[in-house]
């Protein structure tokens, strides 16, 4: 509020009659300039941080990586929303028409989300004065001014790049400042994120223009009223609240495969990808697609850190302790390009073997152990290698003297073998083990018998007491889904069979079911597909949350790694460290201790002790970062063998040349770009992003609430409601489906439906009511499945209440009434709010249609359509009905609302015009305000100046964002009395509560 206004120093106004800049066109053209402007503007801000940021941001842009990573951007939307609805109250009447969708994906998938956001930020201003048509009682509104302001509330920033930058900044500062700095940093992030949020609104503008006009006038009047009345109260409260929220840096501890600890400071909201890249960089690892970061959840279950999602949301209350490990075991390690990759795989397998996860016979233990010795110690030296020389190694879960003797005996026979050869031999033998690369999960079959589900490169294996009792190869599987704690696979009918069959398994709990499902989706995509699935097209209706594997497939990573052109990186195998360790007298952690150590020590990082926490590998003790010395590498291994024989038969045929974009990037960039290389939107998980469009119009009349206090109450009530609905939703959404399609078919064809993720989030998020509604409707419409859901509830009494939509209804309805009763004045507003989502959906659907390539891909857009049909404005009036409707509630984390004033000129067709100036000024205070002035020359010699303001309001839920927003808008208007506000885009990102089950 105050901040934003004050920050603006220069506003260029060339408000002549310049045709309205076409919004659509503008964004693209302006993108670059804007960025530049932003960066330039930053220095202006008082804080020291900014300079740093700039440089970093610049780097990021320049970086191939940055360019390559379009994907990360999409996620930004994923915040939760707390009080979206409330904002409308405070908006000036003229702004009340909303049109925004939270996240559309730009038509061009390749376009990094970030850029998009930037584009979106720009606002066009309208030269034309706006007649006061509907003057309500208060005519105080400024008529002729043209101001464009975008006010956004962003709580979470999701873009990776942004995060990175922020992080760096933080790191620098952090030492000196603790928390205070964080605030600033956070703001920065938010700014960036904001940009992303804006994107959608731009497009929408067209639609809304006509409507906007009328509303604008009203809004203005009201706005002033509100402002006057409420501002005082609000301001104070808001400001204080804002201060409370600060950005935090968190130190992540990553246990590397050699047992060493890697500590890395990460912005609290950083995505998994950021941390993962940090680790890979540390390791000097290029073929990173086989690896991942895992953590232990509250239930001590190992979970994979999703690179596309915020770390914090995934680990919840767990400690920031991670393990770097192999996620996809290459069926033929000899096809890996680099020795360092094979080395890391060896380390993983040694852990797996020593911990018993990879069972093998005595002979195999001995053989593999001997290769380990050869790789790490070199040739057996009778002088040096006495009896005890292998005592530091753990070759088997239960290591006997006999085994050690056998290992030594075999070690002697490997004389002359280089470490790389020894590793290769190790892998050649290890890969033949039947449990190689099999990820086991406890489950029960339909009869309640304990079994194990094993997910591997070839499919799904079913074990009962170590015996393989069934196996479903990927080609046999048509669909993978889970519902609550049940996991289902639909099997392709065999030759003699007529119908598809579905096999169900019972997992210990919902999260376990989801975990298996995700692992299956990932493995199927990685090993079976040529490229990750394209975002679902509009034609497919998908459930709210779609988890997909966004990384590269094996085929792609092989392709990419074939282009690796660097000298073989030097890395140090652990032997030396092992020795040094013993000298140190540091406690040696045995494998047996490992589990305990992990749990106990997980959170902490005593440098020396960290080894313990590590894990399973015998080598835990060694603390060393293998790749540090990478620079030194002398050897150049350019030659690379492309996939030959080892590749699974199926894949080979399917493999297609890497996408054009990929190659170039890879070549130039190499490893880091990889995730995004494909040019495919990497927005795997759309779940978090919900597009909510609220129409304020209805709310308007009542929006101006005389008494602030009353308003607040109303909101709370609404929130409560929402929360409930969310929880219920989450339950109902437990299911997810993944349709596995044969590789031969186009990747894009596959559908992955999953609601599970949303569930988690839903559970967490209390604050994002609006989004909730959308997801479910979609589901039903799209799939027959809903019926199934309803049926199931009966089976599971516990969840029934929550799960079934009908059940939900009662809850909501009461709430609605209660609200009404309590706050009569606000009634309408509340109602409007509730209804809004529905309306929104309708609009959202349109948007989708228009822009096929949406970042969100699979997610909600399709859903929206469904909703449109189902829920119309008519319903808006009746809250109860809506709830009744079984509309699934999906909690939305991110919300973008655009309030747009009517624009006289057709935006779309006008010529872009020439950009004369672009300036961005950022000021930081309680609210962060970024002001961008864009002056364009349009045809006819007219020039148009648009001012974009990004206002980031950060605060806890207790802050009344709406008030803060209103205040900000008011101030903006005051600052530029001669300009008119043409559009307000509100982007809300709500932080999810972390206390989930």
């Amino acid at each position: 509020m105050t901040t934003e206004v004050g920050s603006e120093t220069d506003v260029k106004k060339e408000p002549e009659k310049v045709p309205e800049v076409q919004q659509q066109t503008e964004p693209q053209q302006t993108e670059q300039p804007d960025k530049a402007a932003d960066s330039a503007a930053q220095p202006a801000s008082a804080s020291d941080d900014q300079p740093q940021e700039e440089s970093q941001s610049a780097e990021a842009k320049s970086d191939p990586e940055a360019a390559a990573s379009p994907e990360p951007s999409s996620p930004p939307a994923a915040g939760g929303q707390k009080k979206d609805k409330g904002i409308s109250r405070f908006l000036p009447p003229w702004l009340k028409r909303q049109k925004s969708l939270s996240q559309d994906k730009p038509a061009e998938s390749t376009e990094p989300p970030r850029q998009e956001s930037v584009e979106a930020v720009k606002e066009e201003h309208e030269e034309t004065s706006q007649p006061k048509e509907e003057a309500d009682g208060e005519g105080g509104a400024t008529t002729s001014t043209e101001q464009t302001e975008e006010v956004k509330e962003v709580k979470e920033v999701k873009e990776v790049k942004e995060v990175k930058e922020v992080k760096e900044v933080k790191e620098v500062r952090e030492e000196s400042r603790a928390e205070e700095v964080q605030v600033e940093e956070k703001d920065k992030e938010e700014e960036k994120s904001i940009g992303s949020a804006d994107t959608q609104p731009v497009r929408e503008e067209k639609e809304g223009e006509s409507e906007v006009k009328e509303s604008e006038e009203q809004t203005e009047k009201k706005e002033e009223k509100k402002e006057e009345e409420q501002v005082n109260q609000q301001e104070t409260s808001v400001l204080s609240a804002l201060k409370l929220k600060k950005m935090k840096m968190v130190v992540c501890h990553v246990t590397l495969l050699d047992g060493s600890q890697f500590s890395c400071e990460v912005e609290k909201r950083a995505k998994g990808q950021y941390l993962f890249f940090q680790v890979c960089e540390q390791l000097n690892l290029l073929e990173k697609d086989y690896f991942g970061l895992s953590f232990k959840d509250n239930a001590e279950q190992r979970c994979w850190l999703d690179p596309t999602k915020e770390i914090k949301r995934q680990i919840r209350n767990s400690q920031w302790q991670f393990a770097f490990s192999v996620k996809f075991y290459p069926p033929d390690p000899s096809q890996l390009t680099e020795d360092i990759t094979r080395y890391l795989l060896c380390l993983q397998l040694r852990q797996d073997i020593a911990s018993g996860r990879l069972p093998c016979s005595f002979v195999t233990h001995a053989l593999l152990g001997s290769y380990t010795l050869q790789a790490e110690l070199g040739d057996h030296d009778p002088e040096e290698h006495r009896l005890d020389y292998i005592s530091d190694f753990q070759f088997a879960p239960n290591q006997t003297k006999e085994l050690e003797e056998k290992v030594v005996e075999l070690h002697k026979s490997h004389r002359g073998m280089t470490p790389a050869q020894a590793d290769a031999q190790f892998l050649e033998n290890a890969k033949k083990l039947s449990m190689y690369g099999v990820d086991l999960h406890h489950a029960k079959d339909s009869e309640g018998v304990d079994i194990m589900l094993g997910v591997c490169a070839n499919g799904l294996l079913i074990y009962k007491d170590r015996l393989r009792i069934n196996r479903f190869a990927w080609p046999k599987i048509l669909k993978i889904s889970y519902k609550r704690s049940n996991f289902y696979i639909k099997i392709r009918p065999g030759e003699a069979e007529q119908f598809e069959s579905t096999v169900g398994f019972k997992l210990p709990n919902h999260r376990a079911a989801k975990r298996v499902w995700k692992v299956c989706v990932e493995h199927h995509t990685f090993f079976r597909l040529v490229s990750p699935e394209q975002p679902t097209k509009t034609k497919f209706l998908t459930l709210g949350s779609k988890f997909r594997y966004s990384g590269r497939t094996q085929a792609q990573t092989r392709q990419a790694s074939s282009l690796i052109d660097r000298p073989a990186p030097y890395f140090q195998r652990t032997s030396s460290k092992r020795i040094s360790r013993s000298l140190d007298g540091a406690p040696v952690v045995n494998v047996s201790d490992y589990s305990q150590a992990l749990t106990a020590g997980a959170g902490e990082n005593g440098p020396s002790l960290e080894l313990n926490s590590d894990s399973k590998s015998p080598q835990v003790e060694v603390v060393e970062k293998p790749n540090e010395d990478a620079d030194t590498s002398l050897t150049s291994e350019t030659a690379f063998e492309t996939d030959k024989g080892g590749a699974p038969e199926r894949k080979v045929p399917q493999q297609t040349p890497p996408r054009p974009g990929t190659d170039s990037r890879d070549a130039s960039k190499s490893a880091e770009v990889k995730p995004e290389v494909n040019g495919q939107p990497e927005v795997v998980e759309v779940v978090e992003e919900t597009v909510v469009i609220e129409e304020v119009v209805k709310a308007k009349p009542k929006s101006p609430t005389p008494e602030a206090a009353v308003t607040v109450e109303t909101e709370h009530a609404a929130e409560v409601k929402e929360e409930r609905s969310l929880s219920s939703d989450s339950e109902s959404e437990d299911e997810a489906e993944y349709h596995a399609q044969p590789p031969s078919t186009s990747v894009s064809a596959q559908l992955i439906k999953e609601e599970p993720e949303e569930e988690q989030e839903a559970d967490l998020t209390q604050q994002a009511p609006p989004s909730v509604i959308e997801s479910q409707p979609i589901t039903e419409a799209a799939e027959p499945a809903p019926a199934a859901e309803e049926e199931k509830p009966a089976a599971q009494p516990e969840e029934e209440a929550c799960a079934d939509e009908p059940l939900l209804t009662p809850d909501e309805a009461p709430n609605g009434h209660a609200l009404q009763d309590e706050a009569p004045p606000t009634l309408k507003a509340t109602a409007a709010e509730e209804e809004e989502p529905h309306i929104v959906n309708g609009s959202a659907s349109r948007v989708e249609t228009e822009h096929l390539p949406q970042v969100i891909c699979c997610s909600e857009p399709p859903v929206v359509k469904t909703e449109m049909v189902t829920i119309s404005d008519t319903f808006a009036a009746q809250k109860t009905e809506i709830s009744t409707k079984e509309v699934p509630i999906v909690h939305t984390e991110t919300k973008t609302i655009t309030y747009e004033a009517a624009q006289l000129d057709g935006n779309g067709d006008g010529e872009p015009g020439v950009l004369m100036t672009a300036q961005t000024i950022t000021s930081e205070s309680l609210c962060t305000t970024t002001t961008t002035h864009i002056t364009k020359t349009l045809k006819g010699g007219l020039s148009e100046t648009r001012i974009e303001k990004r206002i980031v309001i950060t605060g806890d839920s207790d802050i009344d964002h709406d008030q803060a927003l209103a205040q900000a808008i008011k101030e903006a208007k005051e600052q530029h009395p001669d300009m008119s506000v043409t559009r307000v885009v509100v982007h809300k990102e709500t932080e999810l509560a972390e206390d989930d089950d």
Partner: protein
Amino acid sequence: MANIYPYGCFTHAVVRSIPESFGKLAEGGEGFQTDLAKAQRQMGVLTGALRQKVGLQLIEIPADSELPESWRIEDIAVIQGDTALVTRPFKQQRRAEAEAVRRVLNELKLTVVEMGDEEGGSGGATLEGSDVLFTGKEFFVGISKHTNHRGAEVLADTFKDFAVSTVPVCGGSRLKNICSMGGPDTIIISSSDGAKKTLRVMEQLTDHHYEILSVPEDVAANCIYIRGPAKVDYLLHPTAEECPNSVPAFQRLTDYTLLPSACSEASKLGAALSSLCLLINKKPNY
């Protein structure tokens, strides 16, 4: 592992002579008259082929008339690499057969793993070698009246390097009555409906690809494949008299040396060629 070699490389064969009591307690006798002398002759032909044609070292355990079924030595142990699992046959009377076998295995310096004799020891696990098909890449264990899940688990625990899959035995009393290995990647299997059913399960469970040699007669489905030292493929199979319709199928195996070996007497008791010997590879693995 290194001990995963193409199926068929063997250096030793262990057999046990036909006792005087042959046929006495045989299961599945069904009133067939067994000819002791003929049985012994057939055994002699088999051992001769193994020793002189294939070139294996043959170890012959003397007969014990107290143990009428001891000639079915395949049931008593499952051997892979240098590990031998001494099984626990379904019939109580047969468990004494293990002692002599165990002694031989120890002499051969195999790592001998016991399933345990006592009822409680392995939880009632029963396993007979003729229900175990080892393909060189994995184990299939037929769940039959002789072999139960617990037995299969013990086997899985013993040979941890390999996938152990359980399959129902359809159309025969033992898994190897309906199928056997006919080459490193070849499974010979009866074309009976039951066998097909079992085959489908096996195909479902395996990660590997096998060639299938389908033979019209059940008896022909049990052969002994050995890859000789000179890279010669030997297949010992029932004679044309026993399985006239299946011989053409065997002849489709190119470059094989076919060694017809009669086992009609053993067949009357539900046994087959492979029942008569244990095959061991003592060649150093690495």
